[in-house]
């Protein structure tokens, strides 16, 4: 028997138990068996994209879908199209910005929309400050990439201002070194493990 992905002999016969329509048997060569077996998680991407496809089939017209795909998060910039393709969100604010679009998906996956488990010891921070921090980090990266170092430096000061004020809900941690060593040259510095950052 040949491998179902190439002409080599199929030496691995794998029963996939996670298929929704019952077990599926795969006949594969060693190379393709490895590729299949190396999937670590029970393909969360498949779960997400599968649930999304189901949701989109039910609710949206092509026009509505095109419009939804262009919708972008103002904090991290991810578009719904990008999320739909990768199954991964760009930042915590996406749960707020795309809330109504994610609701059917979350219901489909979890059959629930309300967290009932553990909570962090500290209250959720000011959402605006979190959103601003994420936008600022994105802007700083863009400024560094385009060699606008003066602009990057101003953004860095604003990030430090938000993070450094203990009364500010966006405050992160006193032990954290600040963003003063932000790599504004565009070159990779202080490689991990080399004592970078003076820790």
């Amino acid at each position, binding site marked *: 028997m040949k491998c179902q992905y190439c002409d080599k002999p199929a030496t691995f016969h794998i*029963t996939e138990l996670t298929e929704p329509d019952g077990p599926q048997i795969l006949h594969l060569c060693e190379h393709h068996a490895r590729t299949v077996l190396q999937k670590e998680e029970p393909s969360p991407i498949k779960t997400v994209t599968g649930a999304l496809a189901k949701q989109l089939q039910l609710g949206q017209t092509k026009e509505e879908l095109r419009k939804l795909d262009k919708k972008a998060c103002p904090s991290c910039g991810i578009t719904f199209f990008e999320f739909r393709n990768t199954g991964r969100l760009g930042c915590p604010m996406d749960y707020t910005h795309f809330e109504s679009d994610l609701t059917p998906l979350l219901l489909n996956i979890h059959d629930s*929309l309300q967290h009932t488990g553990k909570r962090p010891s500290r209250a959720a921070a000011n959402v605006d400050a979190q959103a601003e921090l994420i936008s600022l980090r994105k802007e700083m990266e863009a400024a560094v990439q385009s060699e606008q170092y003066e602009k990057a430096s101003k953004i860095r000061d604003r990030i430090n201002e938000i993070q450094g004020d203990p009364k500010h809900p966006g405050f*992160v*941690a006193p032990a954290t070194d600040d963003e003063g060593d932000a790599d504004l040259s565009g070159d990779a510095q202080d490689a991990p493990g080399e004592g970078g950052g003076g820790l």
Partner: protein
Amino acid sequence: MKEPSDLSILVKNSGEWLKGTGPESDIVISSRIRLARNLAGFPFIKKCSEDDRRKIERQVRTRLEAMSAWKDIQYVHVDTLSEVDRQFLVERQLISREIAEAEGSRAVAIDPGEQYSVMVNEEDHLRIQVMHSGLDLDSAWDQIDRIDDTVEGELLYAFHPKFGYLTACPTNVGTGLRVSVMLHLPGLVITQQIDKVFRSMQRINVTVRGLYGEGSQYTGDFYQVSNQVTLGHTERELLTMVGDEVVPRIIDYERKARDFLMEKGEQDLLDDVSRALGILSTARKISSEETMHYLSKVRLGVNLGLIDDVEVATINKLFIHTQPAHLQKLRGRMLTTSDRHVERANYLHQHLRNGGPADVN
């Protein structure tokens, strides 16, 4: 916290979870719980610049360094490791394949007993994991809950009053909790009942996959059972679902299959497991897949009292120590596939002849 220059301490030892102790350890290899956490004010990893990743890594490292109880923890910068070392940590179940293959600043903190580890900059900023031998979810939860509280310290987690702990993938949102119980089910495989058992599980929100992949019998008849949902249930409810409702049923089926095999054909089974031990202890070249296949039979034989001069702990360790990267680390050099087949056979020979030492080094 220590930042070792190599993984030699880990190579010499073996994880607690391989000891073959704890409730139901003839069938349950390990109970693992992981929590996904992200820092507020940062994008998720896929949208992070390298600068962001370095800052997250540093924030978490600073936090861990401040924890006095963690002075013996090894902190490993995954991005500076060789491919073999990364693979070694994957085989040891201390890091995920995803973080091994990712790019940019990333790390893992590992406790000396290998019961818990914290991955930094995996798919989520933090992935905390606890692994116990046998079916032991309650104490694994108590431990990870405490670790989560301590690690959180003054870090600010991304949390939403409605959606809970926010994660990069919506399949983890809410509790961020994944319970995985690793089961050894050769009885159900031999009696060809395994598909039927797992088909019945699909209706009750659990996922099943193999040791290093999905559903392959050639990975030594190991199957992991995990919760599918993470939102809308408390952590305790999810533990109960997997540990008290699903896993005991599978254990019961496996025991019945083993009883059936012993009643209907003890001689056949004795022949089968003895041949497996014979091949493993006398082969001169052997692949990883073949090793897993026969080790599984030997493990079944030991648990049924058909083989009495080999320890379960030895078999458990051999499953991990005969993996490609482990073999190379143990031998202290790079080996080609063909060399590995020879070295693996030597290694098995050394540890299985005359029962072999209980403590595999």
